């Protein structure tokens, strides 16, 4: 179906960004309100589209809009086109819904920042780019949104880039994302070379005529793209540093939305992965490795935001793993993505609220006993905590258990391995999240005298409360009567009944047991004992490695960065000495003397006009000679 109104979803926040940036300081007074209003309008347009979509039959639900012809050269024809279907509407509502809440939160959170207007301009820019990412009807349109969110992320991570470390963090994020983007470029190139099209519908139709090798290539390259944007192994190292951005940014971009773009990309490309088992297996492996990787890092972090970031990495690992188990897993990956959007955004905003009351302290060892001072933050954070643990009936119980179950039932030894990894991950998650709860909210206070913890104003806790409601209810709502699975099912290949290794009840029982073990260990370790307000030094090698993000930075630095720097230095030197040196030598030889170039130049140059003349005369003479 054709629609004329999809573009408003993007145009509203984009206009906000443009107005705020162009109006400059003039819009300081009202810029944040306009940006929030525009983000909210986009959300309401999304709701309106959902209501229209609900009124149509399954086949009629996807709608599209062609804006104009973007690039057309030979058979490479790309329209600026948008497409809204059952999958993208989920993202639209998540992005604009959570996005608007975070706008509201930021009005208060950023109220003392002289550059608040710029912050809101970037937030609106992000919303627009992210909507383009999920609404674009071809891989190239998606690419524009894909790098657009990367730009917004860069600008927001480095929002306080007067601090060198923050500036470095933003650069690191951009560069590592570009490595991933290269994968997307390759995927598009292979698709065009083999299928002659890069639109989603075109590629989907061409899959059956395309060789498995090409499909595997496209799939792997899409996976590379996903690892960059979604902070998956081995391109995950930027996410921890990205916590340099203001906390609302961490909640919106680096938890709820942008970092899930990789899951969207894989799910959107289900037709490729279904036909490329090798690529699909790699997806599963990346998801499994990252979910453990993130969880392990999460156990060792004292910085509340970095602990949550590690958790995000791990939870997205679950989603990627789920998406790699498609066709049956796609819907569960999306379900976990949506519930995670609620509970993780809520917890990040909670962390922001804690920081707000604690003079921007992020070290959890300097927290403690905040439950009494910040009851609302404690309650909303606590509900998010129960959700991520997967305690029934909170959101994560439904979404995470579905992924664990699907993993177990994916067949054979693979199923057992994947199932065990997801279960173990759930246990570690329970451990590190309990640790965060204990260190922050319970026990004895460990803050110093300057801190005067207090609850945040209503503009901040209201969004937290709304997200907390989502953390409680979203899982049930999305899975009730298989709502989300049925909603999305027209998009994915139908699949027969899969073999059932473990029944849902058994999986839930196992998962809850593992969670209980994790919680218990955390309690034994942190609740009983006095927590030190400085990180202990005499820790095991494992803790030390986990504190250093499992050494990925060290690996990147010694394998890529330092050799790269050496190579650069060598080339800079040889460019002058070898290449230019050779040119200089030839030049001298050509002059017929050993005199330096500079010695020859003055006389040579002054008669340059004459030289041209000589050239012309020589030309004419030569012509004359040969024509005689």
């Amino acid at each position, binding site marked *: 179906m054709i629609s004329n109104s999809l573009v408003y979803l993007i145009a509203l926040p984009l206009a906000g960004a443009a107005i705020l940036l162009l109006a400059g300081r003039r819009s300081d007074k009202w810029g944040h309100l306009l940006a929030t209003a525009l983000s909210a309008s986009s959300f309401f347009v999304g709701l309106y589209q959902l209501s229209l979509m609900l009124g149509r039959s399954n086949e009629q639900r996807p709608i599209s809009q062609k804006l104009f*012809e973007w*690039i*057309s*050269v*030979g*058979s*490479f024809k790309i329209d600026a086109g948008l497409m809204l279907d059952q999958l993208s509407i989920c993202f639209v509502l998540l992005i604009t819904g959570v996005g608007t809440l975070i706008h509201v939160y930021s009005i208060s959170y950023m109220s003392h920042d002289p550059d608040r207007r710029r912050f809101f301009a970037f937030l609106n820019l992000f919303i627009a780019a992210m909507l383009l990412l999920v609404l674009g009807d071809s891989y190239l349109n998606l690419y*524009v949104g894909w*790098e*657009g969110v990367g*730009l917004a992320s860069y600008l927001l991570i480095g929002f306080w*880039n*007067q*601090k*060198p470390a923050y*500036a470095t963090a933003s*650069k690191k994020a951009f*560069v590592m994302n*570009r*490595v991933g983007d*290269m994968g997307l*470029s390759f995927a*598009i*190139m*292979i698709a*065009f*070379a*083999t299928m*002659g*099209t890069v639109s989603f519908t075109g590629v989907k139709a*061409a899959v059956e*005529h*395309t*060789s498995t090798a*090409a499909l595997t290539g496209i799939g792997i390259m899409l996976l590379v793209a996903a690892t960059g944007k979604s902070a998956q192994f081995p391109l995950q190292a930027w996410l921890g540093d990205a916590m340099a951005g203001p906390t609302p940014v961490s909640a919106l971009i680096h938890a709820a939305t942008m970092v899930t773009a990789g899951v969207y990309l894989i799910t959107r490309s289900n037709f490729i992965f279904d036909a490329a088992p090798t690529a699909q297996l790699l997806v599963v492996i990346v998801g499994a490795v990252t979910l453990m990787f993130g969880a392990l890092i999460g156990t060792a972090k004292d910085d509340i935001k970095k602990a949550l970031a590690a958790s995000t990495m791990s939870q997205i690992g679950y989603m990627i793993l789920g998406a790699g188990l498609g066709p049956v897993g796609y819907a569960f990956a999306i379900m976990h993505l949506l519930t995670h959007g609620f509970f993780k955004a809520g917890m990040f905003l909670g962390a922001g609220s804690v920081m707000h009351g604690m003079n921007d302290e992020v070290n959890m060892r300097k927290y403690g006993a905040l439950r009494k001072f910040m009851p609302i933050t404690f309650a909303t954070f606590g509900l998010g905590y129960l959700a991520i643990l997967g305690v029934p009936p909170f959101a994560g119980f439904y979404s995470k258990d579905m992924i664990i179950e699907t993993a177990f039932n994916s067949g054979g030894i693979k199923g057992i391995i994947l199932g065990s990894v997801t279960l173990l991950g759930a246990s570690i998650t329970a451990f590190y999240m309990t640790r965060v709860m204990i260190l922050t909210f319970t026990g004895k206070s460990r803050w110093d005298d300057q801190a005067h913890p207090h609850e945040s104003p209503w503009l901040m806790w209201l969004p937290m409360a709304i997200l907390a409601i989502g953390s409680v209810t979203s899982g049930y709502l999305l899975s009730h009567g298989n709502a989300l699975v049925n909603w999305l099912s027209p998009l994915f290949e139908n699949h027969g009944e899969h073999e059932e290794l473990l029944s849902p009840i058994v999986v839930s029982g196992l998962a809850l047991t593992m969670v209980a073990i994790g919680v218990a260990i955390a309690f034994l370790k942190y609740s009983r004992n006095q927590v030190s307000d400085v990180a202990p030094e005499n820790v095991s090698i494992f803790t030390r490695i986990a504190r250093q993000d499992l050494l990925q930075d060290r690996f990147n630095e010694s394998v890529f960065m330092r050799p790269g720097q050496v*190579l*650069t230095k060598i*080339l*800079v030197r040889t*460019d*002058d000495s070898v*290449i*230019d040196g*050779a*040119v200089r030598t030839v*030049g001298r030889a050509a002059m017929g003397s050993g005199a330096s*170039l500079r010695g020859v*130049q003055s006389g040579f*140059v002054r008669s*340059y006009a004459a030289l*041209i003349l000589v*050239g*012309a005369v*020589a*030309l*004419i003479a*030569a*012509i004359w000679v*040969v*024509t005689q």
Partner: protein
Amino acid sequence: MIWLTLLMALPLAGSVAVALVPKANEKLIKQTAFITTLIVMGTTIAMAVNFQRDNVELQFIEKYSWIPSFGINYALGIDGLALVLILMSTILAPVVVLAGWNESHGGRWSIKSFYILILVLETMMIGVFAATDVFLFYVIFEAMLIPVYFLIGGYGSGERAAAAVKFLIYSLFGGLLMLASIIALYVMSGAQGGHTFDLKALSQLEMSSTTQNLLFLGFFIAFAIKAPLWPLHTWLPDAADSATPGTSVLLLGVLDKVGTFGMIRYCLTLFPEASRTFTPLILVLAVISIVYGAILAIGQRDLKRLIAFTSISHFGFITMGIFAMTSQGYSGAALYMFNHGFSTAALFLVGGWMISRRGSSTIADFGGLQRITPVMAWMFFIAGMSSLALPGLSSFVSEFLVLVGTFTRYPVHAVIATFGIVLAALYILIPVQKALHGPTTPGNENLSDLNLREKIAIAPIIAIIIALGFYPSPLLNVINPAATHVIAQLGFSDPVPTSGEK
């Protein structure tokens, strides 16, 4: 209507007008020059409106006998590619004049001479793209060196004299090789029906493979020096380092395009067989340029040299697109030439303002500009984003077309070249971080932000960069017909999607 001659005559007339203004009246000199460039730009746009975009033949043809005894004609005509490049040149000219309002001060010669040189150069920039007589082309190609030489050597900074000489000798060397090839062509034309320098007639000459190869190299080396292609690039960083920002814009943005333009117009047209023979070698050089230029850019400490090296990488992309022999590669390369003109102009002009305010071009001397001079910092940032080909900006369209057009025929080259996009992120974000971010370092506290004149100068460039990123069709529609035509003449057609070979 004799559009092209008119276009060439206007700046020349302007230069006469400038010459007539009293030396003391600096303001009037600048105003005369600026208004002249505006008139030329307006006339070019009027001409572009009259261009028939579906016509693959040359348009606005003019032909007058010049030196009849040698068969030399004053012959002009343009296709879509030439139109686009003339448009770019004439839009950049007023921008450069306005942006560099004061850069003629403190030169070895007068302010007046500076603007005369600029205007004369503009005439030649139009002529070099419009000439269809090989002799006329050669004369302009060589004569262009003179104003550039004086602009670098007379108004530049640092080792300006040495840089100007290096530029000159490099160019002269290439020019001589081309001259030899031209003479040979002329001689052969005599043996095959009558002496001529007419491009079309020469393209129909019969010649042995060896002859073709040799003559091809004569042209190609001249163009590869201009473009510049690795390893013939070492004059460019020195020249850009010494030239004024405005001169650098004209040098890298316009004059270097004569190299890549020449590859298409002369190498491909005159020597199709030799072009095919040398394609593998040229593609390797192009890929090396892309990666090498980017790595060298990362390693630079000087802002102007850094920008020069980014251009070497970008010219690698253009050359690769040309010799990929696909319509996407060709159109991408042609569009790239246009877009590169503007993104490099933005970088050089804003970089130039930063440098003149700070009194240093060493990147490490800057720091924290985003909070001192926000408008200038953001303009530099946008220019940088354009240079790294961020989607949504014009350079992305051309860069991606080149990559995808190369990939369909030469996947390995395209894959290596794609690594350039990661290197591009580094060579832009490193100077951005050092100069714009971080705390304000000593010496930068009192820098002033852009004034109204500078804002007016940079605004159209930024507007073009953004507008063409989302809507490149006006240019692609002009470029495309020629693309298919040129590729077909060389005996190529776009590779067919391979699916179906399951």
